[in-house]
């Protein structure tokens, strides 16, 4: 036992749903108090990783260690004792809040489930404090979720997630369902809370731009596997994997002058199925740089100074391919 265990360690996490290989060998470490963004497109398995961490799914194989404790082998009863170590905020606040419960009951529920004895008065005080922390007035406790706006509801979800003082917060697309102006305030709130309280966070998103200020590290997922990992700065400025490069190039910049000068990277849009992923490198069917070896040999996870990338064209000295060098006509033909 080390005195300062990592907030989260995933070792070769595998989650298969029948024949669907949703997560296929993901290893990831989040140190105490750090924020890692798990980025991927729909079907990449990123949400399943989050659901395995909070044990909404029991992983097929692999280890999930939260604050040093392997939670994959715990029984329901043992699990309950560790529930307060990790919380989750979902994408859709309307669907994840019980419409028949008052906001106060919703926020207090983790306290009730923890089994710790607490007086009603203390509980109400804790709820009021938590609502205040997420920028809501204490009166909101006596309202129902449908009386609140989307942004307010997501604040309620965050209050519920943080009331048990978790060491790790899983935020699964927490701002994707919100309007731009509301999104900004929820992202700012999460950043402020993280800085003040210091919980570690796995921020799951499809939107790289949303994590630029929030994340310390970035992990990129494609068809159930990690293709790249590294500190935020490096991933944004020097993405190594062709998929990460394509992802960054495809996200349009809200500046017409800059946007129209950028060289587009067009990938074919027939995404392979997780039922029958391509042989070798899973990205090869859409990769503009794919060559023979990519179909026959699974690329190793190449470690270099700025992180990891799983691509035959990445070298341990940090040499990386450039997806823009490929002729886009070859990709789409």
């Amino acid at each position, binding site marked *: 036992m080390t005195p300062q265990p990592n907030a989260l360690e995933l070792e070769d996490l595998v989650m298969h749903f029948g024949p669907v290989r949703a997560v296929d060998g993901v290893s990831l470490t989040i140190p105490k108090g750090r924020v890692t963004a798990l980025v991927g497109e729909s079907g990449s398995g990123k949400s399943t990783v989050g659901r395995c961490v909070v044990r909404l799914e029991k992983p097929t194989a692999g280890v999930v260690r939260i604050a040093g404790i392997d939670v994959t082998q715990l029984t329901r009863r043992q699990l309950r004792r560790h529930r307060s170590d990790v919380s989750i905020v979902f994408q859709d606040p309307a669907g994840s809040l019980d419409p028949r419960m008052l906001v106060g009951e919703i926020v207090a529920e983790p306290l009730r489930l923890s089994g710790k004895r607490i007086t009603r008065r203390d509980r109400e005080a804790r709820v009021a404090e938590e609502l205040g922390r997420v920028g809501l007035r204490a009166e909101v406790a006596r309202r129902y979720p449908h009386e609140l706006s989307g942004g307010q509801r997501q604040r309620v979800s965050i209050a519920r997630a943080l009331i048990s003082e978790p060491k790790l917060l899983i935020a699964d697309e927490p701002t994707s369902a919100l309007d731009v*102006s509301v999104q900004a305030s929820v992202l700012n709130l999460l950043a402020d809370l993280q800085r003040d309280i210091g919980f570690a966070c796995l921020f799951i998103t499809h939107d790289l731009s949303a994590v630029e200020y929030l994340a310390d590290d970035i992990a990129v997922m494609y068809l159930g596997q990690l293709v790249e990992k590294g500190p935020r700065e490096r991933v944004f400025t020097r993405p190594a994997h062709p998929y990460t490069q*394509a992802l960054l190039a495809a996200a349009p*910049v*809200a500046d*017409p*002058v800059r946007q*129209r000068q950028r060289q587009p990277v067009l*990938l074919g849009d027939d995404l392979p199925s997780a039922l029958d992923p391509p042989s070798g490198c899973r990205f090869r069917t859409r990769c503009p740089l794919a060559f023979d070896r990519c179909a026959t040999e699974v690329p190793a996870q190449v470690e270099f100074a700025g992180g990891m990338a799983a691509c035959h064209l990445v070298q341990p000295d940090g040499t990386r391919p450039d997806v823009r060098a490929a002729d886009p006509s070859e990709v789409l*033909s």
Partner: protein
Amino acid sequence: MTTVERAGTASAAVGTPVLEVHDLSVSFTTEGGTVSAVDRVSLDLASGEIVGMVGESGCGKSVTAMSIAGLLPDSARVSGSVRLEGTELVGARESVLRRVRGKEIAYIFQEPMTSLNPVLTVGRQIGEVLQVHERMSKRAARARAVELLSLVGIPSAGKRVDNYPHQLSGGMRQRVMIAMAVACGPKVLVADEPTTALDVTVQAGILQVLRDLRDRLGTTILIITHDLGVIADIADRVVVMYAGRVVERAPVTDLFAHPYHRYTAGLLAASPTPGKHAGTERLQEIPGLVPVLSTQPDACTFADRCPAADEQCLDSAPALQLVRTGSAVPVTGHLAACWHPCPSPRTQPQETTA
């Protein structure tokens, strides 16, 4: 699909207005009373132009789009004018509208799966449009369907034409929707959040298809989105909506270089963009909530969230007009509905080609 050169801010093909919307208002009668969704919206689409309409949920952008070809339910009360090459569409007979829909004005929506019939092959669905509107034979319609599928960048279209929707990826389905929409060579294509349900790597391809349609066929496009990145990528001109009204209208480079309306400025500052906020810790927020409007007040609807609001803003609604700040010469075609437009350019005005 090899076109990679990007269109400039204004296409050479831009010409006379194809579609003119003037003082369009839409309200709905619900159990809770009347809701005003769109209030005196005016805009025009020039031939071969891509106009982007941007706003947050509930701002009335989809209702505006649907009212153009009379797609709203009977509970909607529509007033004002929508003219397609001079023909009035508001209050037009159903027979007129039916001819216009699909043939002159076509739509694509956000969710391709729910808009496609799951039990018919894509070839049959595209063919049906051609058989009805163009009176083509079944055989000719199928051949044309294959052509259309390759036009929108679907590889091996000859095989894909026999696929059912569930056999296609989300991006492919949206391409099928576009193929169906442009089957009769419509003058105007209304694309309502066409890429919102798609991944960014797929979105880039769909936007490229829309650009190609304009460049190759001269299709006029109204694209509706909440995503300023999409607007920056594809639009020639932009219409910004807030709470049922147009608050700003401008050529795309002018709008981003110098938003006049405080709401536009706030929206631009709030949207996360890689690189833009590097070094800053926070995104800018717009305080408050979008109002839910039963009646449109004679006031600026953004006033209670606006840093520059004063009594004038609460007393009367500002009209959409050319903006003059100080001695600056107004930019052609840059209109804003604001009593106190943002004073100095956030950045030096870009040289505009529009």
